[in-house]
């Protein structure tokens, strides 16, 4: 292959493209566009579905970094000193503290007449929060689907996760026995560490974060009383970082400062339940599998388009060779045409992806039952997929042109087989 071959190939390709049918060109570019979107979007949605879980965990529960009690303790020792230290760090944008314990909530204790009757009760994690700080941190009040959010001075009010109430649960949840006939305003009995108190359900929290949907929330002051706690040591401190701060680096900073001796320090990705990352990997593989099929279809499309183009122009290809145009230059002209289709298709695809789809899905996440799915399309991975598409297309364009160009020159000119 020489520079002249490339120059003549490019010249021929440009002339052919310039005078090709606009409809045909448009259709091929459209196929390339769909292939590009298929390559990026299918995987992006599947991965985004899991990424949505991660994002929900981060925004609604863990923040960027979360401190939780050591395995040997029920609380973070010296919590006031820890929070005081955190408040001195410029990377910290906001924190929220939570008490946490196990409890039981019972609904039919007033109407149950027979002691053999099964109590309408369920166990749940009870989280004690500062309603104002928690709402500022996680926006918990926005997840109230019935009733009202807690006020700072509420005494006998709780919020209940929707999975704990039959009326609001999404199907049957394994291991859960949701309470029946309970809604905001219903009086229930809450038992924590042997202490019982009658409380009213003030609101129902609906969240796609399973932990929140199966928890009970009450003001931290009341939970401390029920737990018989007199210190200020909490079970969790969730930390929201200033945008741009690396959570991993911040975690290292905390560990270096000795907080690791008082609490388990995790980034939000560390705290995602086991298996979620595996699902993400599996979904990515599935997405790649579907995309590969799309890629093969695109390759076959381009192969057929170029093959038909070359076979119908076989006589002209013969003439070109006859007048001394090298076979390589002719092949290059088809490679450039394929390249044109792939590059234009990908360019339009990029514009559609980053100009329309990603912002649109970010603004209106896909409502999966367990996640608000987003479209994950990182630029480096998208670039790899473009390269893959272009390479496949170029090969798919080169092969048929080579098949036709290699035929006997005179046979091509005369249309002989």
């Amino acid at each position, binding site marked *: 292959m020489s520079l*002249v071959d490339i120059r003549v190939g490019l010249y021929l390709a440009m002339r052919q493209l310039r005078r090709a049918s606009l409809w045909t060109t448009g259709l091929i570019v459209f196929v390339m566009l769909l292939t590009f979107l298929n390559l990026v979007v299918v995987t992006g949605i599947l991965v985004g579905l899991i990424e949505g879980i991660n994002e929900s965990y981060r925004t609604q529960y863990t923040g960027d970094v979360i401190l939780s009690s050591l395995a040997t303790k029920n609380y973070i020792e010296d919590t006031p000193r820890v929070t005081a230290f955190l408040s001195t760090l410029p990377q910290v944008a906001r924190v929220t503290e939570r008490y946490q314990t196990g409890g039981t909530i019972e609904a039919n204790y007033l109407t149950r007449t027979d002691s053999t009757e099964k109590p309408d009760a369920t166990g749940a994690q009870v989280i004690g929060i500062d309603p104002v700080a928690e709402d500022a941190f996680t926006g918990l009040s926005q997840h109230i689907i019935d009733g009202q959010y807690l006020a700072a001075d509420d005494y006998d009010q709780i919020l209940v996760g929707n999975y704990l109430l039959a009326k609001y649960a999404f199907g049957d949840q394994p291991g859960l026995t949701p309470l029946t006939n309970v809604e905001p305003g219903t009086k229930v009995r809450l038992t924590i560490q042997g202490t019982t108190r009658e409380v009213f359900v003030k609101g129902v929290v609906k969240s796609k974060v399973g932990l929140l949907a199966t928890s009970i929330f009450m003001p931290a002051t009341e939970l401390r009383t029920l737990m018989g706690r007199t210190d200020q040591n909490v079970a969790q401190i969730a930390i929201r970082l200033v945008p741009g701060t690396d959570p991993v680096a911040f975690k290292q900073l905390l560990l270096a400062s000795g907080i690791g001796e008082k609490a388990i320090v995790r980034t939000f990705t560390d705290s995602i339940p086991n298996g979620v990352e595996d699902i993400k990997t599996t979904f990515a593989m599935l997405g790649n599998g579907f995309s590969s099929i799309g890629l093969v279809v695109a390759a076959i499309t381009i192969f057929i388009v170029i093959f038909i183009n070359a076979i119908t122009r076989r006589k002209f290809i013969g*003439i*070109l060779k006859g*007048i*001394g*145009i*090298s*076979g390589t230059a002719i092949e290059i002209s088809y490679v450039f045409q394929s390249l044109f289709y792939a590059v234009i298709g990908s360019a339009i695809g990029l514009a559609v992806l980053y100009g329309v789809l990603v912002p649109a899905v970010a603004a209106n996440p896909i409502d999966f039952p367990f996640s608000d799915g987003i479209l994950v399309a990182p630029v480096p991975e998208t670039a790899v997929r473009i390269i893959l598409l272009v390479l496949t297309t170029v090969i798919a364009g080169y092969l048929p042109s080579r098949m036709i160009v290699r035929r006997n020159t*005179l046979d091509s000119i005369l249309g002989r087989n």
Partner: protein
Amino acid sequence: MIDVKNLVRTFKDGPRETRVLKGINFTAKDGEFIAIMGRSGAGKSTLLYQLSLLDEPTSGEILIDGKEAHRMTEREKMLFRLAEFGYVFQDYALLPELTALENVALPLYMQGVSRVEAETKAQTALERVGLGTRLGNLPSQLSGGEQQRVSISRAIAHTPDVLFADEPTANLDRESSALVMDFFADLHKSGQTIIMVTHEEEYALFAERVVKLDDGQIVSDQKVTETSFAQRGTHS
């Protein structure tokens, strides 16, 4: 000079073999204008394709200026055709997506000539055949005669050693045919070697030598006499 020795071309169709050229011996000297004639199926086009290196002989030798052309690789033949030969095809064989100027300039690009120089040479060649005003026209916007003149321009733009023409007037009306033949005659006068296949006697008379083929063999090889030559005027 093209020298052909004992040239044989056989076509195979399954078990059947058809010998189209049966041991041709033929020489074309520089500057000659040779018309190859014969009835349909006589082998005249096949001989032209052999001489112009568009086809492979089954056996025999083709020597061009002493070089053994029959032993050349496909790429060597391509380069040889590009540099030394020009072709005029019966059906013009212009690329439909290229303008007249681009069609003529294309082989020059392939020779590595710069775009400006190629277009200048192409324009000169087109002006020479009277198409200086149709440079930007696509083949579909030209008449048959004009297309054939573009084809001739493409064939001569790089000043080839030999110009091959395969039935160049077959698809043209008398007026256009006469224009083409007059142009060939002018080219010949300026020293251009031309080898032309035709089945039309009146146009063969424009040549200085007429080679007649029948059944794959040369049956006559004669100079065009003054008397014969004069007859062409009555036709054109």
